[in-house]
């Protein structure tokens, strides 16, 4: 047994065990953390396959961004754990049926004509200084630069559309703009008017008004 196959089996064991715990863990936060563990071990497996760029992308995108967001949501929501556990075993039969169907489909593909081990020989070993990342980057910025740029434009459209469709100014907002506050001048707020002087009333007049 070579070193790489030992690593492969170790990672696979951890992956299967953590994937099982994702669906059996009682606490949703634990389940999410087990999902993180399975992503990281899957990234390790991809590294073994010399797909280092994909492995790092998996860790950065799924673990770093998606799962953190997911954890935030899980922690923010007030989830009733007992309700969540209800009917867990009721779904066992359909789940098993689906699982066996998937297993059969995978077996049909892998033992079929086109994708069996015989028709998919292992690729030629790559030179030691070969870099996946560099090759991907080279392709993206040379052969595929035009679709790459258009994909970027699509993201820009998504941003513009999202803002155009959701940005609303609240009519009842009490927000005060400090910049406009400091440029206020006295004549904007205070108006001095000149009017005829009135005679101050005497104390006798006031008591007369009160007593009526």
């Amino acid at each position, binding site marked *: 047994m070579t070193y790489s196959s030992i690593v492969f089996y170790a990672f696979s064991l951890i992956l299967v065990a953590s994937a099982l715990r994702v669906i059996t863990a009682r606490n949703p936060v634990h389940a999410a953390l087990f999902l993180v563990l399975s992503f990281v071990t899957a990234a390790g497996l991809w590294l073994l396959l010399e797909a280092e760029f994909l492995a790092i992308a998996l860790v950065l995108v799924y673990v770093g961004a998606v799962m953190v967001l997911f954890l935030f949501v899980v922690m923010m929501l007030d989830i009733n754990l007992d309700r969540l556990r209800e009917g867990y075993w009721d779904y066992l039969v359909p789940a098993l049926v689906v699982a066996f169907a998937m297993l059969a489909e995978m077996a049909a593909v892998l033992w079929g004509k086109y994708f069996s081990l015989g028709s998919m020989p292992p690729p030629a070993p790559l030179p030691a200084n070969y870099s996946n990342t560099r090759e991907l980057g080279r392709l993206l910025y*040379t052969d595929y630069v035009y*679709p790459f740029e258009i994909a970027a*434009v*699509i993201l820009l*459209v998504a941003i*513009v*559309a999202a803002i*155009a*469709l959701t940005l609303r100014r609240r009519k009842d907002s009490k927000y005060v703009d400090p910049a406009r506050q400091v440029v206020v001048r006295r004549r904007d707020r205070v108006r001095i008017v000149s009017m005829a002087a009135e005679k101050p009333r005497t104390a006798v007049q006031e008591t007369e008004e009160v007593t009526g």
Partner: protein
Amino acid sequence: MILTSADFLPVWPEVLLLVMVCVILIADLFLRDEQRGGTYALTLLTLAACALVTAASSRTDVSFAFHGMFVDDPMSDTLKMMVYISVAAMLVYSRGYVRLRGMYRGEFFTLSLFATLGMMVMISANHFLMLYLGLELLSLSLYALVALHRESADSTEAAMKYFVLGALASGMLLYGMSMIYGATGSLEIPRVADRIATGSANMTILLFGLVFVVAGLAFKLGAVPFHMWVPDVYQGAPTSVALFISTAPKLAAFAFAIRMLVQSLGHGSLLIEWQQMLILLAILSMAVGNITAIAQTNLKRMLAYSTISHMGFLLLGILSGTVSGYSSAMFYVAVYALTGLGTFGMILLLSREGFEADRLEDFKGLNRRSPWYAFLMLLLMFSMAGIPPTVGFYAKLSVLDAVVQAGYTWLAVLAVVFSLIGAFYYLRIVRLMYFDEPVDTTPIQSDFGVRVLLSINGIAALVVGIVPGWLMTICQRAMQATL
């Protein structure tokens, strides 16, 4: 490997448009609401500049750029010019309408330009990836435009339907494309055609892919039985956006069909396969479109069914499988864009604050209110129905001619019958305009620009019909040099 200036020369119009969209996006932030005219002017200027660049760089040969991702041929130049014209006309027509409905914002203009960019990418695509990306850029901008009128629940519902069904169609298209890739080992259009011609592709998988691609295309064109989104979206969308959806994207969809079906899958037995699929789609579209349109009381909904039937006619031109058939289909789609612009422009003209002139009654007695607009609408309706001497007649005639020459005389007869049925609901509007008493007697108010453009548009439907030769020559030259 290395990009040279030769890669950038043919893409000049796209680059110019993208740079200008970004400029408009930022410049608009500094404009106050009453200065929005600046954005409007800048948008029209951008389209004019793109038209100038496209005209200046148009050539009679085919040139590729970006490692075979992009193609610049006479067909793409001609279609791009038509797209610029119809987008510019859409903006002029809808300015007053969007201003009254709180949609007169910078995003209306930038999203329209992004959609234009998407159409240009589609028209110039030489790679399935570019066809798909251009289509998505166009569709995403259109979904947002439909939903842009936020106060209207109908618009939101229409946008939701459009988005869900559009995503489904994109999925089918991608599935088909992936199968074609599996069968031929390439996504580049000339290479796919090459592999199929040399017979080194797996025909079963190819056929599967073809079915999915045709279904996706029919969805985007709105051909029966993939048409259910069209009436709801046309009715729910703000009229200016319905105008947009019904004109320029059809030109791009035509280019999509030519690139996908003719240029990459147009060899040997595959040609016969998709001809049969298109025959079915065309007959169903003409039948359902024309017959259902009769029952409509909402003009926008009626025009939606009319679009469906026109797309059936367009498919007729494509399925004839000859260069003359493709050029008559191109002529047809250009004429359809022209008349569609005018008809929706008329609805926009009669609409005012808080009032949509989208019911048939709103056109009653238009002759009393304004004989000139009634005459223009008459010309447009005659053109839609295909009554001589308007241009619609010539467009239908040239498509039917191509169909007969391809040996499908029975199909041509069927198309004529359905067109006769369709003439009923177009002529009904003419009757309402000339022989009924007006229900709505508010004076018609409009900008000077709208009046001039609408007059040109209506008169063009007549003049191009009397002298159709030049436009037909443009289409023929474009298709001959491209294929």
